[in-house]
Structures are given as structure tokens and as C-alpha cells.
């Protein structure tokens, strides 16, 4: 991921190295990053990520909706970056991984194909964020799901109760520290269960005892 340093306002493309072919996606991403006042942006694999600090989260969404016409609220979710992982494979270079929650919100244009993912990082201990419901009414359910799955508190959300899980459920399932029950209970059938040959082994053992280390 090429992290571009934050650009100055007047020439958003300055950060792009000359060699890199300036695709329309990069132009759109750089322009959006400038408008939103983002820390940095990336546009590889055809997906635009715009990294924003936590306090600029709501007005980044507002500018994205009004100026960049990204009125369609696609989805909002989070990723739990943590060193030790109770389930699945750990992250790439674990030791210098910065433990954090990353909240992502994808906005796209209802008519064209322009779209972007606003990303902000929250420290693990105070996972709080302003709610986007005043900007997009559709965000309510997504934020409720994100809150119950990761334990992130969305301030200003009309009724932040659990969406999927029963109200009295403790724990946040999508956190990496939450073990997957099904795999704890059943032993893994995959370990090789091929015993040695009873017949040959005794023959060899018997042979070794009688003739010393002559065995086959």
C-alpha cells in the first residue's frame, strides 16, 4: 500500500510519483482526499481508501455526500487488528502491528461508478466514534451491527441496541479474541490416524533382538 503524504491544498497530484500512470481513479481519490482533508489515500486493486482522523469523521461524510455526490450509503463495518488471534491466521508482520480498530464506511454515487471507503482508526481502549445517522439515515442498522460485533460506541445514534444478537448476549463475536464455539467442541478429524504395521514391526523388533542391529 503506497501511503502518500498529506497533500497541500492546491495541487493534490503532487504526491503521486511521476512514473505511476495517473489513472482516473487516482485523480478522483486524490481530489476527494484533498476535499475531505484526509491524512492519506490509496487506490490499489481498484478500491479507493481515504484515511481520516476520528474527529473529522462526520464532516468527511458530509463533504463526500455533498461535494463528491456519494449519496448512496453502501455499508459500514470495522476490522479488529490485534496481535494474538483466537481464530484463523494472525496478521502479516505481527510484531510491529499497531493494535487498533479500523472503522470503514463505503459511500458510492447512486448514478455513476465513483465510490470511496472512508477509513478511521480507533484506539482499542476508547473505541468511540460519532454516529453518521444524521448524515445518512441508512447508517442506523450498520452502526448497530458494528457496535454489537466490535463493541464500538457510536455517540449520537438514536437507539444503539443489539441488532442481531439477543439483548442479554455478552461479548463481541467479530473481535479476534472471541473464539469460535463450534471448533472448540469437535476434535479435528484431520490429524493423520494411520497406525504402524503391527506385523512387520514385530518381525523387525524380533529380528533386532535376536541378531543385534542387523534388522532390515
Amino acid at each position, binding site marked *: 500500500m503506497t501511503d502518500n503524504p498529506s497533500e497541500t491544498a492546491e495541487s493534490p497530484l503532487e504526491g503521486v510519483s511521476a512514473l505511476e500512470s495517473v489513472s482516473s481513479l487516482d485523480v478522483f481519490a486524490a481530489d476527494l482526499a484533498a476535499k475531505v482533508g484526509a491524512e492519506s489515500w490509496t487506490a490499489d486493486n481498484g478500491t479507493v481508501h481515504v484515511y481520516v482522523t476520528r474527529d473529522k469523521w462526520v464532516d468527511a461524510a458530509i463533504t463526500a455526500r455533498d461535494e463528491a455526490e456519494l*449519496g448512496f450509503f*453502501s*455499508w459500514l463495518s470495522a476490522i479488529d487488528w490485534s496481535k494474538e488471534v483466537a481464530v484463523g*491466521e494472525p496478521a*502479516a508482520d505481527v510484531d510491529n502491528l499497531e493494535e487498533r480498530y479500523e472503522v470503514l464506511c*463505503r459511500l458510492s454515487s447512486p448514478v*455513476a461508478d465513483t465510490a470511496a471507503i472512508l477509513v478511521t482508526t480507533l484506539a482499542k481502549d476508547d473505541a468511540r466514534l460519532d454516529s453518521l445517522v444524521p448524515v*445518512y*439515515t441508512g447508517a442506523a442498522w450498520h452502526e448497530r451491527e458494528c457496535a454489537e460485533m466490535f463493541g464500538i460506541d457510536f455517540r449520537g445514534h438514536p437507539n444503539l441496541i443489539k*441488532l442481531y444478537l439477543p439483548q442479554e448476549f455478552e461479548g463481541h463475536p467479530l473481535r479476534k479474541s472471541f473464539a469460535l464455539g463450534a471448533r472448540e467442541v469437535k476434535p479435528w478429524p484431520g490429524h493423520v490416524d494411520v497406525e504402524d504395521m503391527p506385523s512387520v514391526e514385530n518381525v523387525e523388533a524380533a529380528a533386532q533382538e535376536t541378531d543385534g542391529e542387523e534388522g532390515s
Partner: protein
Amino acid sequence: MTQLDHRGIVEVSDGGVSVELRGESMTLNIGPQHPSTHGVLRLVAQVDGERITKLEPNIGYMHRGYEKLTEVRTYAQIMALINRIDWVSGFANEVAFVRAVEKLMGIEPTERAQMIRLILTELTRISNHLLFASSFPLELGAFTPLMYAMRDREYVLDLLESVTGGRFHPNFNRVGGIKPAAGGGKTQKNVSLDLPAGFYAAVESAMDRIERSCEELDELVTGNEMIQMRTKGVGIISYEDAIAFGVSGPNARGSGVPIDLRKVEHDLLPYDGLDFDVITQDGCDAFSRYLVRIGEIRESVKIVRQAIHSVPAGPLVAKVPRVLKVPAGRVYVRAENPKGEMGYYVVSQGGRIPYRVKIRTGSFSNISVMSKVAVGLLIPDLVASMGSLDFVLGDVDR
């Protein structure tokens, strides 16, 4: 007119003939076991007589925790799981995920595989919309269209089964193309899973059959004045609500939002070579959503007829290492699933198992608009507008 609160009179008509007393509204639980909730969805409705004053959809009865499951499975195993999210359009779910992984690995699928994927996706769309055409009139009380649509849907499912082996859950997509051979061993390796003999002829006759079925549905359902009475002006989703709530697919196109991801996402499937148009209605009500879907069946038939004549020759799958290790990276690919925009945000840390997969499904947002739309509706209208959204609980709860 006069507001006499102390005796609980809310309204007195002009001639004093009818006096409306304030009765406390009844809480009516529609679901989770209810014939018209397409699965286990519970609607907690505050009802005044039969008019709904407040509606709170209560979901989660079908939550299987897909995103947690993807964190313990390799990419091939996830492929086998995701066609069960929206079990009515099985094949269409797989395409977006497999394209996302291909983008991450920088592998280009072969043209033949892409065109076969396109044909099978459109067949799945026809089978999904036919299921809608059978369950929507049933919500309104007409039982016969269900049997006609199901009978004609069997032809499409037979086609899917003859190619992929599975009617609902084909599990036919592989990174780099489609499933090349029946197995990994010496003999099974060269048993190619290409299109079976007589496939094109079968598709031709099935498409004529589907066309006749559309005409029959038009005569029996679309033209029927009673259905129009029940569905016109019911369950209005305005243009702004559709966008703000993230409503996508035929529901959004029924409210005038002209976006069809098949025209927008150019590198997903080779739709650019085929001519078809985007069906939109700006009636914003249940009837226009129904018209959009019937129109889309006809468009899909047109697409399939063009597609089977332009299937290029070539291998079924690109060169892919046997043990799949996806390089680190993030990508979001979205596809025009029959129920709406279905997208996969795959975060890979360079292993056999993805670090995080966020699954964006169409029905999740389509349902969230219900609490705003249902205020003031009668119970039969609520059932009609829920039916017109064509959602499936697996899609909503993941």
C-alpha cells in the same frame, strides 16, 4: 375537530355524528413464525385497529455469523459457503467473491469461463425473479401464479444442474475461472466440466418457455385489476429514501434510481458486449417494483440468448497454484445480485485464510427502509410491500 382530552375523545366529526375515542394501540407481533415474512423475521408493530403507527423489524433469528466463519476457512471453503447467503440466487453470490480474490492475486480469468459465468448468473437471476413472481401474488392471496412460476422455474434449475451439478448451491466458481475437471486424480483430471452436449438447444427451448411464462404471468397477474388495486400506491419508497437507506437492485430501480451495476462495473463480467437495457419505473410503489422484476426476466432472457452465441473457445480456468496463497491487500468488489448490490470487502494478509471478509448484501438495507415506509399502512398493505421487496432472511442476517 374539537379536542376533548379529559374524556378521551380525540375527534368529533362536523355533525357530531362520529366520535373517535382514543384507544391504546395494540402491539402486534408479525413473525418470527408468520406465513409472509420470507423466513424468520419478526416485525413488532404498534397497531391502531389495522393501521400501523410504528414498526420495528427485529432480525437476527437467521444470523449464522458468516463473517466469523470466513475467518477460519480457506478461500475454496469460503466459496462453498457463500452461495448459501442468498439461497435463491446461489451462483450470483459466488461471482463477486471470486472476482475479488482474482483482483487481489492479479489473475485474469479466461474469456470462456467469464462468459459461462455470465450465462449462469443470468439464469440464476431468472430463477430468482420467477420465485418472486410466485411468492408476491401469494402474499396478495392469489395461489395459482405460484404454481405456474414454479413449474417454469424448474426448466432453468435443470439447466443449472446439468452444468454445475447443483441446482441451488452450484459451488462452480474457482479462482481464475470455473471448475475445470471433475477431480484431481489421473483419470478425473481430464474429465472436463465444460458445457454438456445439447446445452445450447436446451437453453434455447428454456428461454422460449420462460418468455411464454412471462406472457402468462402478465395476463394472470400484471393485468389483473385486483392486483393493481392492492399494489398501486402501496409501500412508497421515495427516490431520496431509496438512496439514503442504501436500497439497491430492483427495489431502487422501482423508485426511479437508474443504477444497474451490470452497466457500471465493467470488469466484473463481460456485459459490455451484450445489449440490454436497464428497467426502471418511477412509480415508487409495490406494483412498479413488480414490473421492474418482470421486465428484468425478459432482459435476462435477451442477454442469455445473445450470450450463448458468443461463448469463446479456450481453457476453463487460468493457471493457478495448487495451494492458494493470496498476497496481502484489500479490495471491494460489488455485483448486481438479483436482490440488490452484493459486495465483498476482502482483507487478506497473505495466507490461505483471509483476515477479514465484509459481506454487503442487498436485502439488509432493503429491509431497513421498512420501518419508515410502513408507518400508516394497513396490515395487508404491509404484507404486500414486504413481499414486493423480495428479501430473503439469509441475505438480511448473514
